[in-house]
């Protein structure tokens, strides 16, 4: 198989999908006329532009060498997992446990796990978070909350 710029092929296809969603969904809203545009007009037009651009990017890439980018799943999963854990837990158990979850999970982004420095970091960051955000900016989040 010939070597092609698969990164751009994938990117172009993704853009076509996004463009399709927006232009089809825009059909649900009133399109209106050029003189009196409805809420669907601008997004419908942009969606069609995006489909065209996506097709152009993907087509050009078929005639060009390139490499397939290699995603690094470990940092991707660890960082997003940490944020997800934080957002699910913070209103439920409070700021300090959520910070520990965020720091604990996101350190798995790197292969070498170091429990002690991670623990110290989590404690330090919890203190900073409580001082700056709870007290300084008066966000209505307690340091701890007992859900039971």
């Amino acid at each position, binding site marked *: 198989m010939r070597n092609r710029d698969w*990164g*751009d092929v*994938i*990117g172009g296809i*993704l*853009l076509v999908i*996004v463009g399709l969603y*927006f232009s089809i*969904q*825009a059909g649900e*809203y*009133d399109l209106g006329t*050029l*003189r*009196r*545009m409805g*809420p669907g007009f*601008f*997004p419908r037009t*942009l969606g069609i532009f*995006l489909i065209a*651009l996506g097709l*152009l*990017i993907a087509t*050009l890439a078929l005639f*060009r060498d390139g490499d397939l*980018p290699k*995603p*690094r799943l470990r*940092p*991707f999963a660890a*960082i*997003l997992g940490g*944020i*997800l854990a*934080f*957002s*699910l837990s*913070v*209103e439920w158990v409070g700021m300090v446990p959520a*910070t520990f979850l*965020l*720091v604990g999970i*996101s*350190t798995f*982004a*790197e292969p070498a796990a*170091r429990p002690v*420095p991670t623990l110290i*970091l*989590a404690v330090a*960051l919890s203190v*900073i*978070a409580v001082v*700056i*955000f709870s007290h300084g*900016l008066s*966000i*209505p*989040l307690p340091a701890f909350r007992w859900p039971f």
Partner: protein
Amino acid sequence: MEILANLGLGFATAFSPMNLLYCFFGVFLGTLIGVLPGIGALATISLLLPVTFHLPATAALVMLAGVYYGAQYGGSTASILLNLPGTPAAAVACLDGYPMAKQGRAGVALFMTTVGSFAGASLGIVALSVFGPKIAEIGLAFGPAEYFSMMLLGLIAASTLSQQSPVKGIAMVVFGLLLGMVGTDVNSGALRFTFGLPGLIDGINLVAIAMGLFGVSEVIASITSLHAGRVAKGGISLRSMVPTRDDLSRSWLPMLRGGGVGSFFGALPGAGASIASFMSYAVEKRVARDPSRFGKGAIEGVVAPETANNASAQTAFIPTLTLGIPGDATMALMLGALMIHGIIPGPGLVSEHPDLFWGLIASFWIGNVLLVILNLPLIGIWVRILAIPYRLLYPAILLFVCLGVYSINNSVFDVGVAMVFGAVGYVMILLRFEPAPLLLGFILGPLMEEHLRRALLLSRGEVTVFFERPISAGFMIATFLLLGWAILSMIRRRRPAA
């Protein structure tokens, strides 16, 4: 001498203890995050946006602007010492700065970039105070057609002048414009593209999308790439920073040219610091008597781009403040900060809020003097900060992202939005799509739709209105010329440089 009276008002505003404090805080933080690779001005400013709710408008802008131009100073430090740009605009400084460091001349390079940065910023500030009010006067005559054409020009310029392929840039702008459509339509009240989620009724939160695209995804990408961090041995002594007579005589003309190039590109809507510094490097290489010295530690190649990006950081405020058109994504966040305070940036801003406009300009002078102090004697501290391992840094960045996004609306949903756009941003980095045009489109999307609707309503649906009004026609012609140039260069290049 109206301008002197105005500057007098400006300095009176900027020298108030509170504004001075926020100016210092801004430039200090700006230098810090500029020095550190992996977190930039954009992420920092979006982090600070929630804080600015609690500040008066002038203090908020003074602080955010300080972060922006402070980062331009700090950015070159990591470029010179580690061959790793602290900010995108400082990438050019690697080309000749790192070879200088390897020759043991890191101190000179750091000294001369600071001098150049100050010179560039000064030129930029002069341009801003002279041309800003003039452009605002012209802007008063703008109607919806002119605004639409100008935004179109800005978006096309932002996407075609960047380093990536123009088609991908334009695609990102269109994607951003579409994301800007999410939420309630102001004209009809219709809910658009909300997936039935109540959290999206007011649209996607600006801070959440910016933090996701520029904070979270940068962290994911940096973890794998930021391991080779070793600072040149011995540290930087003040004595090693003294330039030779030859260095000085080689540098002053490039500084002037860099300042000119930077001021010009900074003021163009859609261009920005990165473009200015690359252009200035290209100019120096072209006018040099011996171009082969470039890339091997030529001081001109370090000084000129650094002067240019600082000049552009100041003139970037011209279109932002006087026309309400952000030059780049960071400026778009500044616009957001102004709008939070109920100030609509545009031609009326200079006359309606003279204390804000001139106070900001005066704070730029003060901030730049502070930056010289921060960067020359204290350079050793910044060098040592580069030695902080990234594994201690990124959990802190993530925590500030989460809490910063949460604090805007006290909404966990927004934190989730930041996570989703972190994933989107990482995919974009992998596939080499730039996130900055997307954010610019996102912010301009609702404004563009509004002006398009109004222009066509006034013209009774005649699209020719954009070409009949002279100023609008000028923007349209410039847009088409840019597009034509982009297509030409694409055909000639065939293969984009990786």
